[in-house]
């Protein structure tokens, strides 16, 4: 149902220590955003895609499709940045419309390209993390970072419930479809709303039943599960450190230029 969640269980990098993967992607992400340089964006995008597709064995086509999800936002907001309406024409291009110009400068065009590259590289960082780390491992890392206990617990429960509710929702939607529940816009809006209400009601019932089940298994305000530890490997740490140092070097070099 959720493609990313399915894929991360198949990833060959799944059993690499989660903290390592977390630190790697967050640091890389930061360098991307701080430096805003085309060089770093290129390197990061290439490395993350190599790691995800070659090492993690995530199907390349699916990876490419996933990368297009934020495309619309990217195109539209970048357009808003590089297109100006003004009385004075700027240097890159200027199309006269009445007494105004639709115009832009070379500087903003370059900036737009940099922005697109940075954003795509950042998305590849995000995907490296989410396609190779299961959500439970990710939550454990958050807990290690001293995220409030009640939040972590809530996240664990919400993560579990998402799939329960998704299953219910898709069952309701299938039966709506089989009864012509989407024959026109009006009906489909009505069906979707009713599905939502039915889903919320089921959610409440389930939460009651779940609480009873938890209490009968001695729940006292804390969910304790056994952890599976994946060892931290020295070679991996060294590789990550080396890579981040290279990025740091390039960032400093570009900034002082």
């Amino acid at each position, binding site marked *: 149902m959720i493609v990313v969640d399915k894929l991360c269980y198949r990833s060959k990098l799944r059993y690499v220590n989660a903290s390592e993967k977390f630190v790697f992607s967050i640091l890389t992400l930061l360098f991307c955003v701080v430096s805003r340089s085309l060089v770093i964006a290129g390197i990061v995008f290439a490395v993350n895609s190599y790691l995800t597709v070659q090492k993690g064995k995530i199907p390349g*086509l699916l990876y490419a499709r996933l990368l297009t999800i934020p495309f619309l936002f990217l195109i539209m907001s970048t357009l808003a940045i590089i297109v100006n309406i003004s009385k004075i024409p700027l240097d890159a291009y200027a199309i006269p419309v009445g007494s105004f110009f639709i115009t832009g400068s070379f500087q903003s065009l370059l900036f737009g390209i940099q922005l697109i590259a940075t954003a795509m590289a950042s998305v590849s960082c995000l995907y490296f993390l989410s396609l190779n780390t299961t959500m439970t491992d990710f939550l454990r890392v958050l807990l290690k970072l001293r995220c409030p206990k009640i939040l972590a617990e809530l996240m664990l429960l919400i993560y579990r419930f998402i799939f329960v509710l998704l299953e219910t929702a898709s069952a309701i939607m299938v039966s709506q479809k089989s009864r012509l529940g989407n024959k026109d816009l009006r009906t489909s809006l009505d069906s979707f709303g*009713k599905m939502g209400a039915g889903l919320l009601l089921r959610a409440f019932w389930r939460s009651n039943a779940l609480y009873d089940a938890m209490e009968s298994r001695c729940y006292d305000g804390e969910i304790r599960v056994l952890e599976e530890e994946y060892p931290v490997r020295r070679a991996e740490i060294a590789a990550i450190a080396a890579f981040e140092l290279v990025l740091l070097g390039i960032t400093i070099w570009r900034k002082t230029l």
Partner: protein
Amino acid sequence: MSKKEKILFRAAIAFALMFAVTPAVNAMHIMEGYLPVKYCIAWGAICVPFLVAGVISLKKRVAENRKAITLIAMSGAFIFVLSSLKIPSVTGSCSHMTGTGLGAILFGPAAVSILGIIVLLFQAVLLAHGGLTTLGANTFSMAIAGPLLSFGIYMLCKKLKANRKVSVFLAAFLGDLFTYCVTSIQLALAYPSEAGGVAASAVKFLGVFAPTQLPLAVIEGILTVIIVMAMESYAKPELKAIGFLKEAR
């Protein structure tokens, strides 16, 4: 097929797939890596007081009644699932609900701020809507500003004894619009226009996103009305349990 043809064939499939997938029109999550660092930090810092207030109110509710935890968690999962499903839309593109207006009306703004940040984190990691660096900015626009306005309008309409359907619609519709305005302003602050500064830039962002966001807000309003009405007609005891319908009308 020769090897060359095979490669060509595969490339063609890849090319087609790239364009076959309709980009998601979601409720304007700012994508990963799109904001400069200082804005990421600033928006995150602005969210902190609201989140602290949310955690405190959450802890109080759980201390009062421990059963509340599964109920709150179910509500969070519900918002996530609702926002991950494709909704029927006019243009045929695939768009999603935010569910924040509904959340604010049903659970109150304090709970929604916490549920919102969790849902946004899951959306970023599982659906690539939004991102980790832009989590602060997105939380502010979608889990704090929008729901607060929705809740305010809903309360106001209640005081004015407006029609229930109208008040629910207005709360969800205006909350959605407000989220979209806040996001546009966030983008404009980070990227002021070369000609005209922040204000001109805000107008541009508002204009660019209007064609997708305005119909979405209307649809969100209508769906929220249908959901709330259906809930009221056959789930009164459950609604009382979450504090909605507390005061007998």
